[in-house]
């Protein structure tokens, strides 16, 4: 591994960790607020899966960085502009329909992204992907079932799903626009060329929405910026909540 490539892999692991941690935190906000006990537990489990994923990516990035860095430094001591997660992951959790639609978009993305990352020449990234892929199959089964249940449900549940689709659709193009870093890693057989999975994503999402008697949005707007550190106003609030204990008591441990 050349020094240049090592820095690329650190950045790559960081952004994948950011995606997982930020979404995991958002989903964890349902804990004790779930619509009923069983769903509360299920959502908390999903949140834990994402936070566990973030820990693996951060630990790997920290190891490559050396200088005694730890996963905690990366999760708790970086600021908004240093986070590189997709914007869709940081949006406030909204109502249950919003949470489900976001999860559907992300889970379908991961169901195509992770199998490719499993083939990475970087053994650690491949191993993390292999573990995460199993979880994603379960996550997707849940978000698909709920999408169909709510879309083809009552008038109110359908309306809420339509609202969520409207609000979220423009955040999805960002997932399929690899920047120079991701292209370099894809060419080296280490990263995934996300542009290549866009068609499969759209096909799967459309099929599920069809089954849910929901229209596939055709909105033209698209918001991006997460990968370059430009975020919505929501991320700084999320970070201030998530990081408050560690910032107040640096190095604290349970």
């Amino acid at each position, binding site marked *: 591994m050349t020094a240049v490539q090592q820095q690329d892999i650190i950045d790559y692991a960081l952004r994948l960790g950011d995606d997982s941690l930020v979404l995991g935190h958002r989903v964890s906000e349902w804990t004790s607020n*779930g*619509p*009923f*006990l*069983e*769903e509360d*537990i*299920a959502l908390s*489990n999903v949140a834990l899966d994402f936070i566990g994923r973030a820990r693996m990516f951060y630990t790997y990035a920290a190891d490559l960085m050396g200088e005694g860095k730890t996963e905690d430094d990366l999760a708790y001591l970086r600021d908004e502009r240093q986070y590189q997660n997709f914007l869709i992951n940081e949006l406030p959790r909204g109502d249950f329909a919003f949470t489900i639609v976001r999860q559907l978009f992300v889970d379908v993305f991961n169901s195509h992204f992770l199998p490719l990352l499993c083939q990475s020449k970087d053994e650690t990234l491949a191993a993390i992907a292999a573990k995460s892929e199993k979880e994603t199959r*379960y996550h997707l*089964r*849940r978000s698909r*079932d709920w999408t169909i*249940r709510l879309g083809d449900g009552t008038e109110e549940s359908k309306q809420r799903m339509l609202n969520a689709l409207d609000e979220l659709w423009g955040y999805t193009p960002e997932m399929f626009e690899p920047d120079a870093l991701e292209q370099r890693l894809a060419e080296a057989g280490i990263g995934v060329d996300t542009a290549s999975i866009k068609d499969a994503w759209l096909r799967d999402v459309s099929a599920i929405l069809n089954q849910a008697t929901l229209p596939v949005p055709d909105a033209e707007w698209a918001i991006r910026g997460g990968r370059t550190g430009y975020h919505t106003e929501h991320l700084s609030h999320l970070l201030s909540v998530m990081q408050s204990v560690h910032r107040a008591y640096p190095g604290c441990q349970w």
Partner: protein
Amino acid sequence: MSTGNQELFEVFVRSKRGLDHKHVGSLHAEDHAQALEYARDCYTRRSEGVSIWVVKSSDICASQEDDRESFFDPSDDKPYRQATYYPLPKEVGNM
């Protein structure tokens, strides 16, 4: 929290291949498929099992406390129901 239209399901988990399914608890869900998903979340996240059954609680017909005597009294006055009532020929030995 609301469990408006949901039904109660009983959950049975088989902890190892070859063992039987044991009742582990109950949960609310819309249908069997969802009950199975929630059973996985509520009862098997610490690798407790290799197989899950879910059964609608309403489908279980249970004996009633009032019927206790007719169901479970051991009928001690009918010793011929016990194997020990019958003498064994010597050749059989310890059965």
